[in-house]
């Protein structure tokens, strides 16, 4: 707080607490955490896609039957969708100012993101444990 402020609260008191939304820096932090995780995951994913561009079904299944590949694919999908919904939320909050439209879009994006992430996980698990 600047020294010309009319408040009697000390700078420390102003900085304390989790802000009006009561979430503090949680959203910001999870966006960064997923961003850091996506650096190695993305590199793995690009190499994986390059290696299976023209692959037939058997080759793809063999790839996803490897525990390492299956875990990496699940992580890539889950972290990607988490990062995407958290970024899209900020974009919506910045540009949509009619409250019900903003809420509807954010809820829609979050539901869709987690549904798609679940579909990816189920697909990988099905291939991994499949005959």
């Amino acid at each position: 707080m600047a020294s010309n402020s009319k408040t009697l609260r000390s700078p420390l008191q102003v900085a304390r607490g989790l802000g009006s939304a009561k979430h503090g820096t949680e959203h910001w932090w999870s966006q960064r955490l997923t961003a850091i995780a996506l650096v190695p995951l993305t590199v793995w994913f690009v190499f994986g896609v390059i290696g299976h561009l023209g692959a037939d079904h058997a080759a793809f299944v063999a790839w996803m039957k490897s525990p390492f590949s299956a875990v990496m694919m699940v992580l890539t999908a889950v972290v990607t969708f988490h990062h995407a919904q958290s970024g899209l939320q900020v974009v919506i909050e910045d540009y949509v100012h009619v409250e019900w439209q903003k809420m509807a879009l954010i809820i829609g994006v979050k539901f869709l993101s987690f549904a798609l992430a679940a579909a990816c996980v189920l697909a990988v698990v099905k291939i991994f444990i499949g005959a």
Partner: protein
Amino acid sequence: MANGSGRPLSPHLQVYKLPLSAVMSITHRITGVGLAVGTLLLVWWLVAAAAGPEAFARAQGFIGSFFGLLLMFGWSAALYYHLCNGIRHLVWDAGKSFELTDADRNNKIILGATAVLTVLTWIVGLAVW
């Protein structure tokens, strides 16, 4: 300032020529939204593979078509841009590289790395296809 209030004005986006840093900032957001849309292809790919050989062949056929390759090229460029510029954001979050000279240099590094990585990926990708 021109509005007489003494408060700073936002640039008028239709007449103000955005500096490269500003263009790259909004590009980060645009590529992010584009990549989010692109995840739909990832879902299709994985779900098709889980569904069986016919569905997977259909998905691979689309990816290998002209339109599919065009989308993949756009997404690969967007991915590398968002990745490189995202690392710049993490450096900013660490409190570093805020000087204009740093920003100008990093603009060039990010654009160069995006171009090189995209072209390299497609050379390798088309070679092993």
